[in-house]
């Protein structure tokens, strides 16, 4: 195999210098002439009818340029999911009724923030409060306050069901009856959030002639454009959404948000640019967080640890509208289906409306929660059977070529190697079980070790389904890459440039990028289904291959040689063995323009995962294929528990992962470390505290994200199962979500190993541990 010069190398990221020098321009840095400031009025009630809105006093205030309510809209609803089964369900501005605290009522545009905020204080809204419900178990009961009617396809006598997923194969009852041991547990996960540093922000500028320009902090411009055009009844081509640097997203900036719609409509009303920036408090109280799940898991095994049957019931507290709540109950099935063989399986997932803010995706989109439940229970089972945690996982782990029940194939699968290498690297087998019995010098510290496993899909079919990339050669022999992909910090632009550099043998630094502009760049799947490296990467590779072919054909013609004898390097081509007689790309481009009717050499590439599949699999039945690329990982956590205070410290996290192959090992490492830190926060300290639909800790001080003091040592092992060859499609795997997903279970298992306390809910707070150790009474709900 030819040696690679760029792909597989730890090249420093393209956006690095801009970001570290402060030159990077974010949406907040955009200042347009005559720009107005927009602010949003939000519901103070978790559930209420809107009786009347009086904006007259606000309109009289000097500097107020427009106020919009639902009456100013076209009355079109939007939704994270917009399908026949789950049609759009939320107005961008509430109409007649609000269903959570913070729901958007209206927006004002004014000459500055002081005036805009004063205007909000002058608006009078009359509400008729309605009974509210916050707990999904309560909301499902008959007679619970109705937030929305139960989905018409769900026939069970349950209230407030936003959606249901069910899937089954084999015969679980038969599987349980043939099992030597059957275990049933209930796990719960809590509410936490992304913690992106750049708050939600949008600048909209409407130009006469029906052109709406938008800069918005997002994860991909094409979905925003499609939804915005629909809500405003504008042609898609009239809406231009383009890139600014993004200060973090982690799943929180996928969907179209009300503030984006409001900025656009206010700009259309006033004829002036409008900027709306959410405060940190608004992000914490009214925007979308991750999803708290209740997971009931029943598993049957043979004495030797072979998994025979599993039945899972998931309940998602999905908030006042569907959001991604009906997606996460579908995904929950996928996250349990992949890593281990399971002959008999039954899955039911319910999304339940409550009067809480709407939920959205958060890195892993349900995987950390599901894996926490499954991996915790697997350790419980292993202990009951007297098998060690590694053996039980190796016994059931999928292997290369295995077909999944939905028709997907795991192809080259390094899961067993991940489990083995993570265990060996940490000496898990030797350490496991020793922490509880070995006294530390000061008596109250106990050490523990635990493992968790996860698998994550790398790209699926969600609008806009495909990615295209164009590459155009410049007169000087360099190339310009046009991609719709938005670099949200994961390094999208960097790896795409590496691929083009590799295909064309042009120095990495000389590849220019034009990215994420709906008007000038081709479409892209977006930075949210872990498909950038595989889907957009292959599109880039294909565009590069096309350019490469054109260059080689021309060179062969110019040099009267065979293409197969040609060598490319550093923007020139020569015949193998005669590097002194080289021809530069610059000359080839000139020749192309002269001889090929002016072609300056442009290449195009397109990629769509599962090209023969018409749609995304059914959210209701899971039928249809989900992905053609699965990444696998095993993560080991080593913890220290202070048995007097209940505090846990993650000392070390080891991630062994089958990422296919790393296009940029340094970026992969960054993804591992970032996810370890995020999992640590999820496991031990981050929690949105709520009371009756109100958020109690809407700030960085009380929402406890880990600081440098808590950071754990992160080590990683790449398990390579795929490779890259110039000119050929490749299969690589995601590294952005699966590696946040196994560690939660690993930490839970390590805490058990250290203390004997099995935790069935997240976060693993000191209170729960002291309670488990019998040192304090049951913790009361507090704030």
């Amino acid at each position, binding site marked *: 195999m030819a040696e690679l010069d760029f792909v597989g190398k730890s090249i420093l990221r393209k956006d690095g210098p801009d970001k570290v020098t402060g030159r990077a321009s974010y949406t907040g840095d955009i200042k347009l002439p005559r720009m107005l400031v927009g602010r949003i*009025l*939000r*519901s*103070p009630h978790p559930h209420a009818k809107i009786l009347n809105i009086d904006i007259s006093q606000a309109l009289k205030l000097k500097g107020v340029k427009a106020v919009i309510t639902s009456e100013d809209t076209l009355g079109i609803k939007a939704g994270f999911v917009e399908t026949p089964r789950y049609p759009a369900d939320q107005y961008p501005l509430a109409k007649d009724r609000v269903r959570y*605290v*913070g729901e958007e009522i209206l927006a004002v545009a004014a000459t500055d*923030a*002081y005036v805009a905020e004063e205007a*909000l204080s002058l608006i009078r809204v009359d509400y008729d409060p309605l009974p509210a419900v916050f707990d999904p178990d309560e909301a499902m009961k008959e007679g619970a306050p109705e937030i929305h009617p139960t989905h018409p396809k769900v026939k069970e006598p349950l209230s407030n069901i936003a959606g249901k997923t069910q899937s089954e194969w084999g015969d679980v009852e038969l599987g349980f009856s043939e099992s030597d041991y059957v275990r049933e547990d209930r796990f719960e996960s809590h509410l936490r959030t992304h913690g992106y540093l750049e708050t939600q922000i949008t600048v909209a500028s409407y130009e006469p002639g029906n052109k709406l320009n938008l800069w918005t902090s997002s994860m991909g411009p094409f979905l925003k454009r499609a939804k915005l055009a629909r809500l405003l009844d504008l042609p898609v081509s009239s809406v231009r959404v383009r890139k600014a640097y993004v200060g973090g997203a982690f799943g929180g900036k996928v969907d179209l948000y009300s503030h984006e719609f409001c900025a656009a409509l206010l700009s259309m009303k006033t004829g002036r640019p409008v900027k709306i920036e959410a*405060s*940190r*408090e608004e992000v914490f*109280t*009214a925007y979308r967080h991750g999803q708290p799940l209740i997971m009931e898991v029943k598993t049957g095994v043979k004495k030797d640890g072979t998994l025979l049957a599993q039945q899972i019931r998931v309940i998602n507290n999905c908030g006042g509208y569907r959001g991604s709540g009906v997606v996460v109950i579908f995904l929950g099935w996928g996250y349990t289906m992949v890593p281990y063989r399971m002959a008999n399986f039954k899955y039911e997932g319910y999304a339940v409306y409550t009067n809480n803010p709407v939920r959205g995706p958060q890195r892993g989109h349900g995987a950390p929660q599901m894996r926490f439940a499954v991996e915790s229970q697997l350790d419980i089972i292993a202990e009951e059977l007297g098998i060690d945690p590694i053996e039980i996982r190796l016994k059931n782990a999928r292997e290369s070529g295995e077909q999944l029940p939905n028709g997907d194939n795991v192809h080259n699968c390094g899961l067993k190697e991940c489990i083995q290498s993570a265990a060996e690297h940490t000496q898990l087998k030797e350490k496991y079980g020793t922490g509880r019995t070995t006294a530390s010098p000061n008596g109250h510290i106990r050490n523990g070790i635990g493992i968790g496993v996860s698998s994550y899909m790398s790209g699926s079919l969600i609008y806009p389904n495909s990615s295209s990339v164009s590459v155009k050669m410049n007169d000087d022999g360099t190339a310009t890459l046009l991609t719709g992909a938005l670099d949200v910090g994961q390094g999208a632009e960097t790896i795409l440039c590496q691929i083009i550099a590799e295909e064309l043998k042009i120095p990495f630094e000389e590849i220019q990028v034009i990215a994420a502009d709906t008007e000038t760049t081709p479409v892209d799947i977006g930075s949210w289904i872990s498909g950038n490296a595989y889907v957009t990467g292959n599109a880039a590779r294909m565009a590069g291959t096309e350019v490469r072919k054109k260059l080689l054909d021309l060179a062969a013609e110019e040099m009267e040689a065979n293409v197969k004898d040609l060598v490319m390097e550093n923007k020139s081509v020569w015949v193998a063995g005669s590097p002194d007689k080289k021809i530069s790309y610059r000359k080839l481009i000139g020749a192309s323009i002269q001889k090929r009717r002016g072609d300056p050499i442009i290449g195009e590439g397109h990629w769509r995962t599962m090209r023969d599949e018409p749609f995304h699999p059914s959210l209701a039945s899971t039928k249809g294929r989900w992905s053609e690329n699965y990444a696998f990982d095993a993560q080991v956590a080593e913890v220290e528990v202070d048995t*007097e*205070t*209940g*505090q846990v410290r993650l000392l070390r996290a080891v991630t062994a992962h089958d990422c296919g192959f790393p296009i940029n090992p340094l970026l992969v490492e960054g993804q591992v470390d970032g996810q370890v830190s995020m999992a640590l926060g999820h496991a*031990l*300290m981050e*929690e949105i*505290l709520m*009371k009756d639909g*109100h*958020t*109690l*800790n*809407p*700030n960085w*001080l*009380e929402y*406890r994200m*880990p*600081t*440098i*003091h*808590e950071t754990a040592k992160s080590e990683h092992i790449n398990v390579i199962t795929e490779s890259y060859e110039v000119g050929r499609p490749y299969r690589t795997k995601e590294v952005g979500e699966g590696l946040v997903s196994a560690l939660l279970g690993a930490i839970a298992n390590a805490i058990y190993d250290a203390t004997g306390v099995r935790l069935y809910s997240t976060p693993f707070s*000191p*209170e729960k541990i*002291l309670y488990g150790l019998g*040192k*304090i*009474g*049951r*913790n*009361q709900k*507090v*704030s």
Partner: protein
Amino acid sequence: MHLPRFEYFQPSTVEDAIHLLEIQKSGARLAAGGTDLYPRMKYGLTRPESIISLRDIPVTPPTLSQDGILNLDAFMPIKEVVNSRVILDNAPLLSEAAGRVASEEIRYMATLGGNLCQESRCLYYNQGHNFQFIEPCFKRGGDLCYFVPKGKKCLAVYMSDTAPALMCLNAKVNILGSGGEKQIPIEDIYSGDAKHPLELGPTEILSQINIAKLTGSAGWAYKKFSLRGGVEFAGVGVATVLQMGDGKKVCEQAGITVGAIAASPLRASNAESLLKGKEITDSLLKEAAKAAAEEIKVVPHHGYSTPYLQEILRVQTHRALGTAYERVGVVSQK
């Protein structure tokens, strides 16, 4: 979020500051480092018509008087309190507590006096009230408590780290006002009412802190419990001093004070008397810690429950006493 509009004064003497306070009446607020005041203004929790900044008033370096009293200017930045050699040598407990205040950045801005004069805190109170918890609670001048809906009083918690240390050291503070200067024990600046935790009048300034130096036969410790390192306020903060007799075996005087569990720091008097006159053993320290956890009733706050905080109070008191005992005879921390 942004600051509301206000008038701004920057006097260069304390007398001018007091004079300005008299003129401005209750519409004025003093700002030392501003690290407590400005965020509260951004949340709309206080809306002063004017700010009287103390930043131009020269800070007198700490001095040790002939009779062993350490005099500290209240306007000293916390960072200087942490770094000061004379404080480290004579009141190392204060150095330790000051080093645990907030974060490095805030310690540069915040002052010792400001840390003592900070407002009490509560999750429901310390946020904006635009669409959440709009109706004023007790602390915002209303008639209800969101935390305990049937509650009759404010349950906000006073969370200074330096206050329990200073109370443990029996510090006295100087209060300057239009009526002149007075010196009172630090305990006396607290009202015990979380709604207005400080007794200072509208034209008074806490100007100086005076501490009797610790002798070589004393041990000390401040233990702050928080979920994260840095930045956070305490869940519980415990300050201890063990003043030992000549043989360094028998405890002559003990100080145990606890912060972040009520409207003011509290003294664990029963636990202190338990130690007085006794030879120190680990079981005695355990007993004292247990007594402290029994006599001090904690207010649950910031996500911690009562049983948990009560237990943490016991554990931290035991650890603080243990560290204090280990340090007996070690004059300086560094």
